[in-house]
């Protein structure tokens, strides 16, 4: 089993100190953003992470990627411990794990051309340079549904959906094994969300990607995920197959979360309200 696992996080803890005092910082308390979380992600699998704001989803993602050093606990990537590694030691792992961000307006440098944004990871990791780099970037742009001519454009010339495609091209440039997508569609228009979800689906099939997919929209998470983990107050309260968690939730908080999702069907929605009123 462990050979199949890409990510194995065990007893992961991330506390942020709350400090008080002017000259001498006294630690008065801690925010337990991630509080003893264990999770595994199999190779080629999509693990969906749902939870409300402040539940610790994003901190968990950043801790798994070692963008934040965990307070304690272990993160294994293909069986190798990466928690506590130095920046230099992390370098070979970095290209294996990439991130897609929520806000396509804030996550692309407005002064850089698209070619540079997508090409920089390739250049920095010494994968390609010069004409070869340009060809690879143009292929990537076409792969995500943009065109090679977009190479010299700036981010402001693109719509939100197209910007998210640029962010995806950057994330897949180094052929990573793991992609952490933190709310990748929540800033996009409804008609564009499905396009991006389908693109992520296709890329997974093509490139054998493993996803850690974070979103607060449970419908979207259920669509894309194999398994779902529900997070609440820094802990994972329930894990299971996507259909199982959505159809037969075991945890009280998961039930409450699911019951709050509006049903886009007036008859179903009325029936549910009558049930709630009666029960």
């Amino acid at each position, binding site marked *: 089993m462990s050979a199949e696992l890409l990510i194995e996080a065990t007893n992961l803890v991330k506390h942020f100190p709350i400090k008080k005092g002017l000259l001498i910082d006294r630690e008065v308390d801690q925010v337990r953003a991630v509080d003893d979380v264990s999770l595994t992600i199999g190779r080629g699998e999509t693990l969906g992470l749902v939870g409300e*704001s402040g539940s610790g989803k994003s901190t968990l993602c950043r801790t798994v990627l070692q963008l934040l050093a965990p307070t304690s606990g272990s993160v294994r990537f293909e069986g190798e411990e990466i928690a506590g590694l130095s920046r230099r030691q992390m370098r070979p792992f970095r290209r294996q794990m990439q991130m897609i961000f929520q806000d396509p307006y804030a996550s692309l440098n407005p002064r850089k051309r698209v070619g540079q944004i997508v090409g920089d990871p390739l250049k920095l990791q010494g994968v390609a340079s010069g004409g070869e780099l340009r060809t690879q970037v143009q292929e990537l742009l076409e792969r995500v549904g943009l065109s090679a001519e977009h190479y010299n454009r700036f981010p402001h010339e693109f719509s939100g959906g197209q910007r998210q495609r640029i962010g995806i091209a950057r994330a897949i440039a180094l052929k990573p094994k793991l992609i952490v997508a933190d709310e990748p569609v929540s800033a996009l228009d*409804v008609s564009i969300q499905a396009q991006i979800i389908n693109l992520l689906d296709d890329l997974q099939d093509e490139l054998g990607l493993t996803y850690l997919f974070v979103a607060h929209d449970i419908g979207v998470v259920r669509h894309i995920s194999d398994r779902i983990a529900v997070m609440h107050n820094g802990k994972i309260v329930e894990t299971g197959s996507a259909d199982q968690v959505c159809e037969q939730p075991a945890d009280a908080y998961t039930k409450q979360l699911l019951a709050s999702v509006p049903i*886009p069907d007036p008859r179903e929605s009325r029936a549910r309200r009558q049930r709630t009123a009666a029960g």
Partner: protein
Amino acid sequence: MNAQPLLSVRDLRVGFTTEAGRLQAVDGVSFELAAGEVLAIVGESGSGKSVTAQTILGLTRSPNATIEGSVALRGAELLDADEAELRKVRGAEIAMIFQDPMTSLNPVQRVGAQLVEAIRAHNSGASKDAARQQAIELLDAVGIADAERRVDDYPHEFSGGMRQRAMIAMGLTLEPEVLIADEPTTALDVTIQAQILRLLEDLNRERNLATILITHDLGVVAEMADRVLVMYAGRVVEAGTLDEIFYDPQHPYTWGLLGSLSRLDRPRPRRLPQISGAPPSLLAPPSGCAFHPRCPHEFSKCSSLPGLEARLEDAPAHADRCWLTPAQKRELREVEGRIGLEAPTP
């Protein structure tokens, strides 16, 4: 229909001159709102839904804006009203709540003080103590626990849901007849969203408060609305009752919106049906039907603009802007056993 609707919007057009050129944000929007009714305006960014709502309250007036048409509240024209007259309408007759309660509340003033200010601005006779008492009652009415104590909190001491409740309380201060809620739950978590929707629904029922609900979320629409307008690129492309829009949608854009939802109560499709392309730029909108470049069912007629007309014999209030015949629509909108928009072949 009543002889005189509470609010009547006729052929509203709002254009802006920008550095990049002139754009028509709202292009001929008409609707009526009866007392106690919930009207949802659905659309994506740039569809003109927020501009329509803001124009009702005169919030889009500016030197670069051209506003035409009519907005009448109980027959009285609001587009011609001067600022002093509008001030009497805002809050007292039509109140508005916004998406982001953090940026709509003053961060350096206590919540209670902001409510008191609103109360006394319109009723100078109210004493400070009476206004404060009324503020506490309002916070209590919108479900803020321990309102007596929380009235002296600053906005940052409130959670997101409480801030939105405080905004709603502020909107209710002067007992308006119309509440315009612009994406009132978009910034909130789902469990909080459910509570706020419940609150809006209660207010609608108990106070007979007519509500214009602006949202991109069809789930929210299904929970609350009586009637729905679907907007695209500044125009209404379909208008009907809640059930008409969900169960007998006539416009391909509506099909696309309904089809692309990831529904928790249905088996998941292998692929999400998607609408191809992106919403048009309002600086250079497509001629004819603005949706035709994205529509797989587009044909020769679509280069001219269809009127917003009732095309079904048995539903005179269900109107759409699409040249297809009702029979064609019934057939074309079925994609793999559900309503959707077939992706055009690339």
